């Protein structure tokens, strides 16, 4: 496939030397001003500290200092049995939380060679897309605040609540539901979910159109975003960028379709959303279009979801149904053993990446054959995409740095873990 449809001239953006991810001022002009943007600043979307060197209003130096919300989740997971580790995972990327749960469970299932029922795969896709919608809504809301438009924040947060209501209806939790289990999902969809979800789809389509109009017709928005922070596709790839940011540069690479996709995306199908310009504006546009695409996928899931069990029937891995505990001794034993000891996973190294709202998101998991993972590392899209920030911000105005940072959408929980 061609990287771009139409021939396009990209700006020459080079990997910064000597340090690939930092921008150092070229002169030692004493008038240069070094400021700390963050760690506590609303536009850094968390606790990110940008050591910025300014020549007047022009950014000539930039360093990302991260680690302020490093909580050692990976170390903690090593001390937990596999299914007790699941609640930690959505706390990493807390905006598309369900992607985290799914990625973790998929990695464990891959190591176990455990088959997941079809209905569970479809439900997982449904909630992955809801989480993506949730993440993109927050992206749009907070991103518009960074550009000076506060109205969109309130619209987006109101719409986001509709998504969280669906999570609450199914799982009892608004965020971090721990709904995904190794082998499937915890429970089936409740009665009345489908009409409520369809209501949400209709509401959200209308909302997304409104947001689109609100920013598409806005000349200030266009001037603030068009041509700012242009990211050539080959440079993006060199710096490890994946997800919507890469697709905004015209590369139709999406793990939902790459090699045929994963899980129920293989059956449902998906067409990656791309934009050609690669600038801040394109990165906003890609996410707005992805919200529409997510709504289409959700609708397809509701139309075509197969009947059947929602969790695998392997009693050595999956908790037995609650009602069996009263009548079956074996179920009680299995329940007890799973809760106290967990299940063992064959030794080996696996990596199962999925497409989260920010790109390639996967757990590199090493098992030693015991009930706890030997090593878990998140390949976090946010950590990687922060590396390109310095090159993108070379020579832009400070205000544009804020716009660029908003448009690449890092989540600091995902960066620091």
């Amino acid at each position: 496939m061609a990287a771009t449809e139409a021939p396009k001239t990209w700006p020459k953006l080079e990997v910064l030397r000597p340090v690939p991810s930092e921008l150092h001022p070229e002169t030692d002009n004493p008038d240069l001003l070094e400021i700390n943007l963050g760690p506590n600043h609303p536009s850094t979307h968390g606790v990110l500290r940008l050591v910025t060197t300014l020549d007047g209003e022009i950014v000539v130096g930039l360093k990302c200092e991260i680690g302020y919300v490093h909580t050692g989740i990976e170390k903690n997971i090593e001390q937990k049995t596999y299914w007790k580790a699941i609640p930690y995972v959505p706390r990493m990327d807390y905006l598309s939380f369900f992607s985290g749960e799914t990625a973790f469970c998929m990695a464990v299932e891959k190591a176990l060679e455990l088959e997941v029922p079809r209905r569970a795969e479809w439900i997982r896709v449904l909630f992955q897309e809801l989480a993506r919608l949730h993440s993109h809504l927050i992206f749009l809301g907070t991103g518009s605040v960074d550009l000076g438009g506060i109205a969109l924040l309130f619209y987006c947060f109101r719409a986001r609540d509709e998504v969280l209501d669906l999570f609450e209806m199914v799982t009892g939790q608004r965020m971090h539901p721990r709904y995904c289990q190794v082998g499937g999902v915890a429970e089936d969809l409740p009665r009345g979910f489908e009409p409520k979800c369809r209501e949400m789809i209709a509401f959200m389509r209308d909302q997304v159109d409104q947001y689109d109009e609100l920013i598409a017709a806005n000349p200030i928005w266009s001037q603030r975003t068009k041509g700012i922070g242009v990211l050539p596709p080959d440079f993006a790839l060199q710096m490890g960028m994946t997800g919507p940011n890469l697709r905004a540069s015209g590369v139709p690479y999406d793990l939902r379709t790459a090699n045929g996709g994963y899980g129920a995306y293989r059956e449902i199908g998906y067409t990656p959303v791309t934009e050609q310009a690669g600038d801040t504006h394109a990165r906003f546009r890609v996410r707005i279009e992805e919200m529409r695409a997510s709504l289409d996928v959700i609708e397809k899931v509701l139309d075509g979801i197969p009947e059947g069990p929602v969790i695998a029937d392997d009693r050595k891995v999956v908790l037995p149904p609650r009602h069996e505990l009263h009548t079956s001794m074996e179920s009680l034993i299995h329940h007890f053993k799973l809760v106290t000891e967990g299940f063992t996973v064959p030794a080996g190294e696996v990596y199962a990446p999925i497409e989260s709202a920010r790109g390639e998101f996967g757990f590199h998991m090493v098992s030693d054959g015991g009930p706890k993972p030997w090593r878990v590392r998140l390949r976090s899209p946010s950590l990687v995409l922060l590396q390109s920030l310095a090159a993108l911000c070379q020579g832009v105005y400070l205000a544009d740095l804020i716009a660029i940072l908003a448009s690449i959408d890092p989540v600091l929980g995902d960066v620091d873990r």
Partner: protein
Amino acid sequence: MSDALLQVNSPTWGEPDHAAADRLEAALGQGVVERRVEHRGELTLDVPVERLPDVCRHLRDAEGYDLLSSVTGVDYLGYEGEVAGYWGGGADGRDLNRSASAGKRAVPEAPGPKRFGVSVALAKVLTVADGDHRRLRVRVWVDEGEAVPTLTGVYPSADFHEREAWDLLGIEFAGHPNLRRILMPEDWGGHPQRKDYPLGGEPVQFSDEV
């Protein structure tokens, strides 16, 4: 286990790319691939540590692995032993979280010759014409005090990954332009992701109890 299952569970890896490994050996000489490990459809190539940048450059330029997905360090201290390094249980105490019968199904053999494994995950993105985005893992082994040559010259995005591996595991990357701590504070002692780093009992920062 069925083939269909692996199709579902590992779709984004594609077929194990043995052909690339063969061509790698043809180009860089026999012995550049010390071992091929295939686990769950994922192909891992163990290479000599000093050849790592050459191997990656070859895979990038000749095979089209244009995306460095991640660089992950793993500490295998005590991996193959009986007590498998679950911290909290040892000669002087009982681990309440580890019941006596929670033994391993099989004691794993040592995965590699040395303490640390550094896995470099590569993927094909732009260079793929037919949607066959394959993945490949290149792995090197080092002991305490040995350095891995940096990959920042081949894949610039290795920067943060290598800094993280240095910070959390103490694996040194020779030639890295900016090898300093990334997640932990600058003045932190030790490397917390190591298996011999204690879980509890560290001083509380910013308090008078230090």
